């Protein structure tokens, strides 16, 4: 090894500083990166801090598997060893007062470098109630601290790239100076939504640094099986408004200089940057993986050779920045710190079984004036589309922190595929109302990230052109549905997703389907489906004023239907989970919502006229939460129940309604519960097919007669 004498070091530093201007060569991978730090020029205090953080991180990384072996916890641990340089740099560049950080499941050192303590890391690893990421609710090794803008993210690789773009959008809209750092592995760029995120970030010039930590493997899948470019960031070479920097993620100085440069570019040039950091994965992907099954000894030795911590330590000694004794003292300090952190974490409380229902979804806005969501307002009837449009405008006037985006929602006189948002961009401007790319996942994913910027924000998105195009966004919806619970109530995605839903327009597949049966299976979101203009207005107002995510399904066949038009009080509000009796009756009950409410009312009228039957029609309005009390009350009143909805009978909402009744009001039933809904088929385009598949007044009437006569 080099035998530099201590008195030579100062001379060496001076020479380097002197020659820095002359030398334009950078041996690292991004020639334009300014060399702010080097082993010779970085001050000793900084080097000491870095070494301390790296030793602390590695001590915890090495210790994590022991918790599993002792059956204490940390059953998922993705070791970061080999990513040390870039993770240290991310955490050091991140400023929690101005920036937002989206770490991924391998980012232990990133989070330590950003300020998390050893105790906080261990409490996350062994899933304690005081885990700052989410009280032990999310998988171990998913480090976060939402109050510091270190976000709690999904396990789905790269999913948070869209959230990062959304937060970047919010920063830009609010004129906030800072950056979003989105950290992810190289395999994440095999995911389509990552491309959507980077496409959007570059198109909108968002202040985001996408850090790709490339260790060459997605679990056991080598990079060559993921994508053609060895440097995966080169897949994005064609994107405009983007700087791509490569760095050696194993090297502290190159990583630090590159991250500093990236932040500078984002702040000064106003466009996103990809930092592609080459790392090694010294260990297996996680503790459920055995890398010796697919990596030979030569490779394992090769990656161990480039242990970043060992390299940094050698440099500190070689260039006489520290003595062996000084480094050993730091290592001893870390050992003691980890020991104490371990003791504290072991003594920390576990989450309780009773806590599982905390923070599933935030408490909604409470209506004082309309506690049961009904009114006696007399006025000219307004169409359902008017009710939605006017409520949106009223809420946007009421709350300046409201935003709306989606496909087709704002282009001159057009306001959505059905013109529901007509006039909004003209009134509220393109900063608050704007088009989104045709990328449903991105629309919702950015809404999630946008609302992370500030809890006051309310985002309304038109989730897709038609509800049945929403499926690509299910990945983001499922993830968003977890957020409030997973973060132990620290983050609430405050979003209303509007979807033009249902059939009776001859649209066939992707234009005439309805998707609430799938949606209500998700805890953590609300699902509402009005059938009249006033309820649409009232539910929408409540949804926008509430925290949490509401799926607002609009029966598009009723947008302009006179039968759905009603008077609407200007300030109308409908609480969630409140059904509305649209027709009183005593002989039987029909429980329904959406398009079929009107068919049920028509059938009830016919029953009255032709059979003198008194049929009660209950419009659920809100599917999740569901008004169990109203359901049970009507059963107790009539003893006979027909459940009707447009969605498929099999797997539809009606199954849950029937289950509630049989388990809680069986003794009140005088007949089997009957159901009418769509057949268990896709929906045909030809009107003949659509009529055969979807319920209609005649089918409902026939079933009602059968039930009445039972």
């Amino acid at each position: 090894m080099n035998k530099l004498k201590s008195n030579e070091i100062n001379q060496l530093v001076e020479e380097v500083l002197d020659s820095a201007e002359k030398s334009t060569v950078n041996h690292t991978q991004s020639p334009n990166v300014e060399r702010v730090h080097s082993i010779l020029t970085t001050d000793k205090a900084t080097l000491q801090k870095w070494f301390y953080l790296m030793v602390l991180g590695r001590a915890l990384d090495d210790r994590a598997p022991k918790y599993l072996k002792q059956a204490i916890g940390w059953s998922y641990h993705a070791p970061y060893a080999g990513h040390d340089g870039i993770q240290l740099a991310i955490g050091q560049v991140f400023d929690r007062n101005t920036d937002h950080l989206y770490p991924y499941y391998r980012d232990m050192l990133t989070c330590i470098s950003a300020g998390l303590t050893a105790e906080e890391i261990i409490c996350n690893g062994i899933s304690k109630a005081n885990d700052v990421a989410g009280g032990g609710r999310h998988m171990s090794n998913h480090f976060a601290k939402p109050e510091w803008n270190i976000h709690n993210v999904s396990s789905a690789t790269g999913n948070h790239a869209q959230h990062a773009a959304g937060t970047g959008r919010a920063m830009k809209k609010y004129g906030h100076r800072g950056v979003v750092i989105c950290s992810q592995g190289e395999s994440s760029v095999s995911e389509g939504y990552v491309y959507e995120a980077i496409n959007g970030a570059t198109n909108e010039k968002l202040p985001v640094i996408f850090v790709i930590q490339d260790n060459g493997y997605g679990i056991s899948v080598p990079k060559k099986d993921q994508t053609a470019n060895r440097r995966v960031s080169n897949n994005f070479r064609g994107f405009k408004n983007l700087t791509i920097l490569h760095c050696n993620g194993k090297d502290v100085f190159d990583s630090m200089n590159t991250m500093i440069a990236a932040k500078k570019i984002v702040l000064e040039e106003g466009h996103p940057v990809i930092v592609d950091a080459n790392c090694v994965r010294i260990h297996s992907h996680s503790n459920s993986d055995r890398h010796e099954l697919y990596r030979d000894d030569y490779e394992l030795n090769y990656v161990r050779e480039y242990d970043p911590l060992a390299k940094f330590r050698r440099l500190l000694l070689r260039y006489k920045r520290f003595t062996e004794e000084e480094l050993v003292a730091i290592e001893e300090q870390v050992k003691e710190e980890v020991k104490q952190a371990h003791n504290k974490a072991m003594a920390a409380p576990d989450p309780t079984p009773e806590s599982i229902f905390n923070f599933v979804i935030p408490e909604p806005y409470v209506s004082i004036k309309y506690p049961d969501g009904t009114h006696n307002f007399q006025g000219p009837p307004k169409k359902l589309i008017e009710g939605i449009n006017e409520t949106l405008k009223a809420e946007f006037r009421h709350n300046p922190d409201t935003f709306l985006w989606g496909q087709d929602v704002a282009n001159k006189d057009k306001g959505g595929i059905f013109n529901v948002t007509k006039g909004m961009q003209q009134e509220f401007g393109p900063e608050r109302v704007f088009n989104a790319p045709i990328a449903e996942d991105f629309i919702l994913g950015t809404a999630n990230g946008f609302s992370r910027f500030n809890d006051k924000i309310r985002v309304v998105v038109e989730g897709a052109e038609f509800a049945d195009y929403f499926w690509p966004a299910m990945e983001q919806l499922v993830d968003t549905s977890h957020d409030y619970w997973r973060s132990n109530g620290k983050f609430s995605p405050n979003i209303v997703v509007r979807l033009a839903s249902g059939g009776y327009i001859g649209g066939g597949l992707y234009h005439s389907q309805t998707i609430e049966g799938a949606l209500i299976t998700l805890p953590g979101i609300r699902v509402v489906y009005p059938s009249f203009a006033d309820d649409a207005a009232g539910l929408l107002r409540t949804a926008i004023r509430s925290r949490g995510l509401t799926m607002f399904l609009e029966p598009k066949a009723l947008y302009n239907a006179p039968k759905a038009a009603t008077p609407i009080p200007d300030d109308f509000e409908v609480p969630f989970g409140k059904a509305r009796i649209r027709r009183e009756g005593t002989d039987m009950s029909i429980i329904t919502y959406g398009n079929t409410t009107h068919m049920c009312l028509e059938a009830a009228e016919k029953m009255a006229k032709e059979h003198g039957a008194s049929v009660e029609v209950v419009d659920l309005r809100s599917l999740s939460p569901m008004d169990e009390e109203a359901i049970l009350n009507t059963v107790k009143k009539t003893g006979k129940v027909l459940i009707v909805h447009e969605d498929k009978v099999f797997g539809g909402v009606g199954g849950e309604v029937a289950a509630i009744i049989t388990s809680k009001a069986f003794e009140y039933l005088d007949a089997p519960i009957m159901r009418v809904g769509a057949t268990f088929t896709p929906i045909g385009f030809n009107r003949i097919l659509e009529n055969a598949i979807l319920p209609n007044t005649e089918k409902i009437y026939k079933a009602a007669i059968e039930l009445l006569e039972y």
Partner: protein
Amino acid sequence: MKDIAVIYSFNTRQTKNAAKEIIKHFGNAVKIDEINAEEIDGPTFMKYTNLILGVPTWFDGELPNYWDEFVPELETLDLTGKNIAIFGNGDQVSYPENFVDGIGIMADLVQSRGARVVGYTSAEGYRFESSRAYRNGKFCGLAIDFENQSELNTPRIKKWVEQLKKEFE
């Protein structure tokens, strides 16, 4: 001809084989010192006018750590008057995007400190997409591909050594 230093990592296999063959082809007409790159320092480096550096490429276009750790010191040296030849292993099939980048990175470094890089070779006969060692149709050193063209190693090394005999002082 002045003494030559051949500097490479003694812990390597392929680089060491190539270094040994280079030394063999120089014969006994010149004094050659073998120096372990893992122990190289400035004073040792500065002793020689003619140097041959073994610089394989690691990962997706990086210097091996033993060279990388020498770089901060290397950047302080005045290499004016030195003739430096570089050879390096690369895999043009698996790593066509950064084939023998290490040679180019090292060449840039020593050139920036005043050294004359010698031993340029033709890039004909290789198939790759990009390389930091590629300059105007040539590599700024000798590219050796053990994985895909091992049969060409000996003739390439022989030819390169003959060239160095003329280019070294």
